[in-house]
């Protein structure tokens, strides 16, 4: 049944570096800015005679991720060797998990445009990364840096449940957020700590027996940004549509199978790397140098018990429990430490309500984080300090804009809000007699706006309040100033 609108059908393979201190099978440090070939040893160099020894922390992190993706941890997982010749792979085989991975099944709920869609997870497995082969423009030969060789890599393979370029991107972003939340990986895209390989095909109606038909699968290798994922998938969807329109009988999965494509970031197009015929035979077989992984049930239970509340669940809870808008809840739960900070802040505030606290978080705390490009743990004030200053605003001790200034000064000096307000004499004044004198002076000095207000222009009042605030060094309680002004001008 051709003619029906083709449905993009996309599965994703995502590789991410695990946040371990050492490599997958040796004790070398995982470092990204070390001089080339300085974080290596006989084991990760694949020297004759060496043997791998599994990094238990990497297995723990993989299990953590698999559990967070609602997967199951089989009682038995094993290592396999995957063979291919390439200069960045000293042994010419990669230790991976082929048919019995650490994590099986599960799903990830992905929010997009105020709704969520569910992507099935096929498997989660561990492997070792390769080195970096480089081709210096001036060099007569290629060079290889093996610092990355043996870095623990987690591969998350999804079911083909993604149906658009936007969804592909959102899936990648949500998976990244989850990995960072769980402290499974830092997922720094610039450092190549996360790489994406979408598999794209279009479902093109069904055959005479009602089974779905597909265009050939193309796998795009090594995408390392969300933008490139979105662009590359969009490009492929369009390309598949065109190819299929041009040759509806020939451009099918049965005929052409699966091919591998690369992505040119500058030209924003994919190119063929390997067709079905050229597919590698990796000659997988069980790695005889390692014993199988038989995760102890108690250990798995401990890892499960240690899982934090996951971002999507937390986002929904923030909306329900704190009455936050969708947007605020999304922003505040994107980073686990920010969300933790916010909750602690709400708990410790005496007078600030949850919504006001959310505003403080977004307008003051997170603005500073963005400006300084630091994590919330790196600033010198805690949730209780922010609660102190926002409580002072809510109770009227200082006004809102003074509050922001005090907050900034707290960051600089590490002093408490009370100390700063006290030292700098910032407490706002609500004393009527004092403020009446100020208001009289302002009206006298600004006859124009005063006339305008009397003439019915409400907006002119704002200017007069502003003048009064300035005259008091920002300490005047703007509410009281406003009342006095209105009384005077109308009265």
């Amino acid at each position, binding site marked *: 049944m051709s003619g029906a609108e083709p449905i993009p059908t996309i599965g994703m393979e995502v590789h991410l570096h695990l946040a371990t201190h050492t490599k997958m099978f040796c004790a070398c440090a995982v470092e990204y800015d070390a001089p080339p070939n300085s974080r290596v040893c*006989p084991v990760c*160099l*694949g*020297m*004759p*005679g*060496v*043997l*791998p*020894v*599994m990094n238990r922390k990497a297995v723990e992190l993989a299990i953590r991720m698999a559990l967070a993706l609602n997967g199951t941890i089989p009682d038995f997982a094993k290592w396999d*060797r995957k*063979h291919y*010749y390439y*200069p960045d792979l*000293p*042994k*010419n*085989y990669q230790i991976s998990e082929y048919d019995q991975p650490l994590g099986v099944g599960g799903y990830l709920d992905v929010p997009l445009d105020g709704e969520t869609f569910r992507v099935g997870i096929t498997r989660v497995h561990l492997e070792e990364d390769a080195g970096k082969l480089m081709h210096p423009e001036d060099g007569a030969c290629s060079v290889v840096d093996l610092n990355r060789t043996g870095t623990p890599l987690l591969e998350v393979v999804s079911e083909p449940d993604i149906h658009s370029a936007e969804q592909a991107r959102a899936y990648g972003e949500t998976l990244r957020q989850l990995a960072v939340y769980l402290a499974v990986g830092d997922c720094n895209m610039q450092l190549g700590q996360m790489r994406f390989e979408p598999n794209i095909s279009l479902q093109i109606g069904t055959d005479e027996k009602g089974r779905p038909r597909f265009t050939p699968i193309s796998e795009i290798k090594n995408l390392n940004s969300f933008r490139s994922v979105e662009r590359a998938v969009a490009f492929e969807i369009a390309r598949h549509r065109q190819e299929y329109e041009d040759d509806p009988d020939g451009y099918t999965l049965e005929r052409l199978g699966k091919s591998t494509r690369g992505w040119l970031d500058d030209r924003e197009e994919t190119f063929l790397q390997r067709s079905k015929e050229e597919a590698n*035979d990796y*000659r*997988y*077989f069980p790695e*005889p*140098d*390692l*014993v199988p992984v038989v995760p102890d049930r108690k250990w798995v239970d401990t890892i499960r018990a240690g899982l934090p509340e996951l971002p999507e669940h937390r986002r929904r809870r923030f909306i329900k429990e704190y009455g936050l808008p969708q947007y605020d809840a999304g922003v505040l739960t994107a980073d686990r430490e920010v969300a933790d900070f916010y909750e602690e802040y709400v708990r410790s505030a005496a007078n600030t309500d949850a919504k006001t606290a959310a505003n403080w978080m977004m307008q003051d705390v997170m603005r500073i984080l963005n400006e300084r490009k630091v994590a919330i743990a790196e600033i010198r004030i805690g949730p209780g300090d922010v609660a102190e200053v926002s409580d002072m605003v809510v109770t009227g001790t200082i006004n809102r804009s003074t509050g922001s200034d005090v907050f900034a000064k707290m960051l600089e000096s590490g002093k408490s809000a009370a100390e700063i307000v006290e030292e700098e004499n910032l407490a706002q004044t609500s004393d009527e007699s004092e403020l009446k004198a100020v208001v009289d002076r302002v009206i006298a000095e600004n006859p124009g706006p005063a006339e305008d207000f009397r003439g019915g222009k409400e907006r002119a009042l704002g200017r007069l309040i502003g003048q009064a605030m300035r005259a008091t060094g920002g300490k005047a309680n703007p509410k009281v100033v406003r009342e006095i002004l209105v009384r005077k001008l109308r009265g």
Partner: protein
Amino acid sequence: MATIDLTACRMRDALRARNLSAVEAAGACLEAIDRLNPGIRAFLSTDAQGARRRAEEIDKRLDAGEDVGLLAGVPVAVKDNMCTDDGQPTSCASRILENWRAPYNAHVVERLLEEGAVIVGKTNMDEFAMGSSTENSGFEATRNPWDLDRVPGGSSGGSAAAVSARMVPMALGSDTGGSIRQPAALCGVVGLKPTYGRVSRYGLVAFASSLDQIGPFGRTVEDAALLLQATAGHDPRDSTSVPEADQPVPDYLAALDEPVAPLRIGVPKEFFGEGLDAEVEKIVRDALAVYAGLGAELVNIDLPHSTDYAIATYYIVATSEASSNLARYDGVHYGHRSSDHADMIDMYMRSREEGFGDEVKRRIMLGTYALSAGYYDAYYKKALQVRRLIRQDFDRAFEKVDCIMGPTSPTAAFRQGEKTDDPLTMYLSDVYTASCNLAAIAGVSIPCGFTEAGLPVGLQILSGVFTEERLLRIARMYERETDWPSRAPPVCGEAP
């Protein structure tokens, strides 16, 4: 008695008593090597200077009354597939690794040094341990000390010949399908393959990772026990080495002279079938009669999968793993790099073409084929299934008997060149030994007599996993009744 005629244990006693210095012991071995090695070619490299220096240091420590370890001052040779960071090559007797120097010591080499041994040199072998005659060495063939026209067996032929010709009192070899036991038999010495996991493989250049195991050569059971004692035990760098908590290393020497009684010996009919040389069979049956005379019960048993199937299974498992282990010798990071190449793929191909010998290439091709898509299930996977059956054969047998005995090799040492054109016949040299590796159990070959032509014959004794202590006692029972270790090859008689 000349120093080189001392067994390792007696040499150790003399060194501890300060009746012999480590410098004298090393000097005697180096002298014997100078005299005998040109004819036998057991060593690929020797380190006379290093050995003397180390011997001097050990003498000083012994003089100071220090405990210098189990092997204090005893010279030892190491097969050339074990990494040493002393500047000697670790070539695996392959042209492809001719110029490679290991920057680290194998676990067993560390152990030897910790126990005070003096490593005098590295011994010849079939290239990457692939062969049964040491004729596949990329450099030169080792000769059998009992008849220089004959092979010493392999692949650890250099270590076996070196011990047999009394160039060193003991040596380390590696055994993947019989590579310690078969040359031990052909050279008339004791060679033991420990249970898989007993000795760390860290620093042993891999041939077939699930089968390889390092083990000792000595002229006596006691010497083999001593060297096993020094090298056995857990190593966290080898995930397949067994933790001490699960399998503590027993004292192999303490009760060595205590007979095992009662002793039930399994005699598998499969080890006495077609292909077994009549003279070898008679000598081995005489050895069994000695055990019977000591009160042992001989029990006929079946090991239905353990000869014909074992060889087929062995050659699939071993070549598959070898094809993977040897992939790293590509001229990029490791191995000879061809100077003449058009591009990267061409460089890979030419480097491997030039660097590997024929037998290694043959096995890489076999293994690559067996692991290929579409063939994996029929070959590798099937081989793993048969491997389980072989293990079951032994498990069942060891419910009824304490050990299994038979010939180590179907023939005594064959002539140089006799089987080099017929790989399949050569493969049958391992027919009685390969199943031991597939079942991951322990096995030893001890001298049990000589043919009319004066060639040694070996008795193979197999026993269950981690039963080396009892296995050595069983071997010692026979040794006490006979006097084979005192016989030296004629070539040694030419000593000045």
